[in-house]
């Protein structure tokens, strides 16, 4: 494909206009927009594949630290499974907390990846091209972690397969009335789709890497490329498949977090059994997810020197996203408080007081500041949106805020059942803390390793995008525009 393009007027050496003023405009456009700033495909590929193979000291250090934390996670899990759930801070009133908080949180950030790549693909936002794969990898690893959480949380994890539908001599099946059953189903579907979606997208790039690489990488890519040769037929199939996935995955994504919200919405626990939980959880998930993607983008940009690909325009756009999602989330969140405040159901009033003036007040206000105050105060300004450190700072705050928000819902609200005799407070103990740290580490570790194994920037999408981009002159001004397809 690159070859065909290069026959006549290859985009990467289109001459600048002679008029210096216009030339300046074109130059500006080119450095602003990645897709305008076309380079020869080989060079583009090199920009991705080059750093990928160079494993510096920082990488190995990160690998050791994160790997260590991950190992601690697994060890702690083994310890907990051997000793019993009693090693956690859970008690007879609050039987869920730490792991379910993580579960909801990771499902949440799992959302953004597919949202960005699938939804934006459907909406034909070309600029998304360099972001999509990082986002997808976040989805995959976040979901993997989220999937383990209910298992870690189980009293007898070695019997987990009883929750799966398979024919057995007991003549017993899982209970379709239980939200947990649908959790498993939805997450499993979502995980599978996301993995396939990502893998398909990677195929052509793997093939490119295969040609360039040597040694074990060569063998690895040979296997992974599944014999991709880049024939028109293959491209056609790939394109259709990706489209089908993009359309198919979006409803799945919405279903997943709605189903997760049922774990709470379908109970009798005051503060949980609210009909708004479905959409509210979905939006919250996207909110934290987009924030997470911003952070991952920044890290990768630094670690793999992707300044060429990830530019101000991308961070700016993501910033806008974050702001919009923040508005939406706030709308749902306060809906969830307005009604209780209005109808004054006793326990809900207790919980409300607890948040506003009780021992949970510090948490609650931190959450409000991190989720509402700061994003609203900063993200409106382009300066903040386009300065990477600032934006990452905000995104981190959003992570903290959203984690606390889930903590308040799961670990605190649950402490206030109908009968006051049973009220309780949950205090985390070492195992939960270690496991939580471990899973965070695992997600980062996964992305780090993946970014070194496969091109984390979709080369072919970038090149394709660049080929389709051009400029159009109207009077004395030049605008970025699609070139008429040749």
């Amino acid at each position, binding site marked *: 494909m690159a070859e065909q393009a290069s026959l006549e007027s290859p985009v990467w050496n289109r001459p600048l206009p002679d008029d210096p003023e216009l030339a300046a405009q074109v130059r500006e456009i080119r450095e602003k927009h990645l897709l305008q700033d076309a380079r020869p495909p080989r060079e583009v590929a090199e920009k991705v594949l080059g750093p990928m193979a160079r494993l510096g000291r920082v990488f190995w250090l990160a690998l050791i630290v994160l790997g260590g934390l991950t190992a601690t996670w697994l060890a702690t899990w083994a310890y907990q499974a051997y000793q*019993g759930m009693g090693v956690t801070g859970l008690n007879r*009133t609050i*039987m869920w907390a730490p792991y379910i908080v993580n579960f909801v949180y990771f499902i949440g950030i799992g959302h953004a990846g597919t949202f960005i790549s699938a939804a934006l693909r459907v909406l034909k936002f070309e600029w998304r091209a360099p972001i999509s794969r990082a986002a997808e990898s976040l989805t995959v690893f976040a979901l993997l972690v989220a999937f383990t959480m209910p298992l870690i949380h189980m009293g007898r994890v070695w019997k987990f397969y009883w929750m799966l539908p398979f024919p057995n001599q007991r003549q*017993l099946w899982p209970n379709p009335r239980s939200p*947990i059953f649908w959790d498993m189903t939805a997450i499993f579907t979502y995980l599978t789709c996301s993995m396939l979606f990502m893998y398909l997208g990677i195929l052509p790039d793997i093939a490119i890497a295969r040609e360039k690489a040597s040694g074990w990488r060569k063998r690895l890519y040979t296997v992974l490329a599944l014999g991709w040769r880049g024939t028109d037929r293959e491209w056609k199939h790939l394109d259709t498949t990706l489209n089908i996935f993009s359309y198919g995955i979006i409803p799945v994504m919405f279903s997943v977090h709605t189903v997760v919200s049922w774990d709470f919405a379908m109970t009798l*626990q005051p503060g949980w059994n609210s009909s708004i939980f479905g959409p509210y959880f979905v939006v919250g998930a996207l909110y934290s997810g987009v924030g997470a993607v911003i952070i991952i983008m920044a890290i990768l940009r630094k670690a793999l020197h992707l300044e060429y690909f990830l530019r101000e325009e991308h961070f700016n756009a993501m910033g806008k996203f974050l702001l919009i999602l923040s508005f939406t989330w706030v709308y749902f969140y306060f809906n969830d408080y307005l009604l209780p405040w209005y109808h004054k159901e006793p326990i809900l009033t207790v919980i409300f007081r607890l948040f506003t003036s009780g021992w949970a007040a510090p948490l609650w206000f931190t959450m409000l500041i991190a989720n509402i105050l700061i994003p609203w105060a900063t993200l409106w300004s382009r300066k903040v949106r386009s300065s990477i450190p600032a934006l990452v700072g905000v995104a981190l705050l959003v992570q903290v805020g959203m984690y606390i928000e889930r903590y308040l819902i799961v670990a605190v609200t649950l402490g206030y059942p109908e009968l006051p005799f049973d009220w309780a407070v949950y205090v985390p103990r070492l195992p939960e803390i270690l496991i939580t740290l471990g899973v965070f580490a695992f997600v980062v570790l996964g992305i780090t390793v993946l970014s070194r194994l496969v091109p984390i920037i979709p080369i072919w999408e970038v090149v394709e995008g660049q080929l389709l981009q051009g400029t159009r002159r109207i009077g004395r001004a030049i605008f970025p525009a699609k070139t008429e397809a040749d």
Partner: protein
Amino acid sequence: MSELETRLLDRGQSAAAAPKTELPSHKWTMLIDLDKCTGCNACVVACHVENNVPIRSEREVIRGHGQHWIRIERYWEGEGDAQRATFLPMLCQQCSNAPCEPVCPVYASVHSERENLNLQVYNRCVGTRFCGNNCPYRARQFNWFAPQFEGPITEMLNPDVTVRSGGVMEKCTFCVQRIRRVEEDALVEGRPLRDGEMVPACAQTCPTSAIVFGDRSDPQSQVAQRLGGQREFQVLEHLGTAPNVYYLKAGGSDGGAG
């Protein structure tokens, strides 16, 4: 019995088809008269002994892992120095419309259509604790650790009741092992159950007979007779869980002195 023995003794290969005994189903109901409950804890200890409920150590109790199938909830009524304690024995309410049942992914918490009880099938439980969260009475007890019965104490374990392992949810069963025992006897003797034949450990020992137990579907039974009075109420009735445990309000004071 003799013809039965002959049948068994001739070792006839073709098993005679089972006699068509239609097993009756029951509405087991517990009635707790708060006017008589003195908070003496006899029911609690009796329950522990009958059902092999482990006693948790001080450390565990402090961490909120105390484990009792029936407990005496003590509330305070009134203001200032006029405050008076009241006792509310709390146990699994055996809801007809139980919140714990639909949420269990593996049918460990199931409804027995036959006995109209919430069953907890311990060996099926995987320990998601969803049922425990969803029980507004917090009547379900989780085995945070495997139970420990030290030395010869193992010998007083009731062989009719499963000893639960760690990571399993458990709860009051209305002494289902006793229910089954009397039912099996009745079945073998080919007679209906008698009222008062089935008594759970707590009701059996209650010195003031504050706890009354029986089959509501039998209009002659003591519970059926005593239901529907002025003082009757159910805990958290508004949630629509339709418990099978009924309470009778305490008679109350005539405006006390001092």
